């Protein structure tokens, strides 16, 4: 079990660390103020988004810089169906996931054969098209630049209403937990192996009979679906969605989460998400200089840990440097 999470040599110590981390996660919100809990909530949102992009970027190695587009589709699906048709938010979570996944399937089908940077720019274009379309308010349903507001709280049949910071905290981290469990299962399945094979050598994978096109599309569909769920929770937490929240900048942040943490590594994604979401909060006292610090730290991190903070270990040898070197030459 431990090697799946790619922990270091001593499984006992790392297991203890995980137990401690989980305990802290359960106890922390009862002692912290609302501000800290909300920060932890957004950490959870970024963790979920990072995990979803990690499938596309980390597992399959596809450059996706338009991931905020899928997130937006999920958030707007929830927002519109809830405010216009009054459907309950929790029931809309799978609907949002499906809407985002379907969108990913339709959009990515014709472009999935593009390579590297060409795929990158097409996903950027796709994300921008989604954002611009939301601003332009097609059929008068997206509310234009102001967005949609007045989204309900999620509730279970009316008796458990999730409306406080602490409940949202448990909701998002519950979803993150389930997602991690599913992704670990996926990593060790036939699908996960096919994905990694495609990332390491697409031509060889194709030659040996892996349906490259199918597995790439599957990665986009699953990644978009999870991003859609993140959009659903985000919409109900903020009660308002507007196009600014889903800009190219957001996609870049998600990209950084995966790369700072370490491609394909689940604990790495959590660390990357922590960095992206907590750093600006912690450094708030620096006021207008904090983003200067943020940019410099990003550069420094890549200088000292180019393979990411917690790279995924595979098999007996450490892939980190050898892998990156190969990629640099290709």
């Amino acid at each position, binding site marked *: 079990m431990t090697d799946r999470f790619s922990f270091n040599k001593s499984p006992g110590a790392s297991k203890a660390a995980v137990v401690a981390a989980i305990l802290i996660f359960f106890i922390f919100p009862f002692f912290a103020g609302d501000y800290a809990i909300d920060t932890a909530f957004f950490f959870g949102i970024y963790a979920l988004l990072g995990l979803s992009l990690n499938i596309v970027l980390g597992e399959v190695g596809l450059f996706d810089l338009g991931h905020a587009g899928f997130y937006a589709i999920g958030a707007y699906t929830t927002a519109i169906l809830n405010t216009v048709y009054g459907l309950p938010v929790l029931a809309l979570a799978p609907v949002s996931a499906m809407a985002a996944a379907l969108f990913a399937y339709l959009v990515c089908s014709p472009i999935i054969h593009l390579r590297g940077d060409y795929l990158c720019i097409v996903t950027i274009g796709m994300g921008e098209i989604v954002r611009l379309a939301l601003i332009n308010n097609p059929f008068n349903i997206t509310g234009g630049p102001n967005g949609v507001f007045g989204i309900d709280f999620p509730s279970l049949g009316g008796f458990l209403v999730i409306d406080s910071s602490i409940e949202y905290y448990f909701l998002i981290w519950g979803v993150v937990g389930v997602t991690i469990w599913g992704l670990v299962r996926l990593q060790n399945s036939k699908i996960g192996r096919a994905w990694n094979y495609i990332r390491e050598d697409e031509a060889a994978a194709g030659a040996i009979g892996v349906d490259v096109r199918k597995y790439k599309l599957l990665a986009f569909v699953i990644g978009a679906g999870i991003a859609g769920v993140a959009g659903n929770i985000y919409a109900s937490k903020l009660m308002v969605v507007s196009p600014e929240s889903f800009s190219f900048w957001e996609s870049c942040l998600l990209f950084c989460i995966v790369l700072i943490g370490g491609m394909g590594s689940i604990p790495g994604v959590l660390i990357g998400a922590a960095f992206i979401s907590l750093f600006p909060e912690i450094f708030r006292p620096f006021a207008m200089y904090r983003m200067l610090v943020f940019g*410099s730290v990003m550069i420094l991190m890549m200088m000292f840990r180019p393979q990411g903070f917690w790279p995924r270990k595979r098999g007996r040898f450490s892939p980190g440097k050898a892998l990156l070197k190969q990629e640099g030459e290709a």
Partner: protein
Amino acid sequence: MQVVFEQVINGLTIGSFYALIALGYSMVYGVLKLINFAHGDFFTLGSYVGYTILVWVSGLTVVHFGLWGLIVIAMFVAALAVALTGLAVERVAYRPIYPTGRLPAVVSALGASIFIQNAIMVVWGPRFQAYPSKLIPNIKFVLGGVNITLLQILILLMSFILMAVLYVVIQKTTFGAAVRASALDRETASLMGINFKKVIFFIFFLGPALGAMAGVMVGMYYRQISFTMGWNYGLKAFTATILGGIGNLPGAMFGGLILGVLEMLGAAYISAAWKDVFVFLILILVLIFRPNGLFGERVAEKV
């Protein structure tokens, strides 16, 4: 028909901005295979440096050099300042990182972009700045019923001269041949005695300088500049680079011009609000049918 011609001229004007910025992307990409996300911010920085010279130092320089001299000085100083910044960014943020791979370099480039953008905000403030209004006399020429302003003619002239010079340098000089060879195959080029460090110096000097000049021109054309505008222009210019075929310099120039014209025609005939959607749709369609861009050559797959 007149509307079409006018939109084409407007499109060529903004297209030449995209083309100048795209050249920087394309050169860096060609040699280092790195998407230089900080490039859009070089452009913004150029715009702000030009603004400072035009506004603050104008009293002094106008007396000595006249208005045209002032504009030339502003462009020259902006280009030089940003070129030096480009070299510094390469030295600090890219050189230690690109040997380890392409993706870490992307994060580093994004970090550099955030840094420059916020440095501009700290220095010049978060609000919009406006270029002086009566810089270039507002003269309109009417050619066969088509309006064209003096400023547009100047911008087109300057950008075409800059592009022509760069084209000649890249295609006709020994140094240009070194850059092209490095883009083709860095290791073999090094074995043939090409100094790769000089090539990198060259591209990180020229690329930001061209971007900065585009920045000053954008300032004169639209008059309003903001510290975040680099993202938008950078994104468009990067799109232009891909449209033309990445790493292909004439492709980047034509890509920029085509993008500008398409944008303006889209604004006139489809809708101003949807023009960017139109541009990205065209890009996606082009890439579906020509996966290596309009002018990109088909590269055999390495196994």
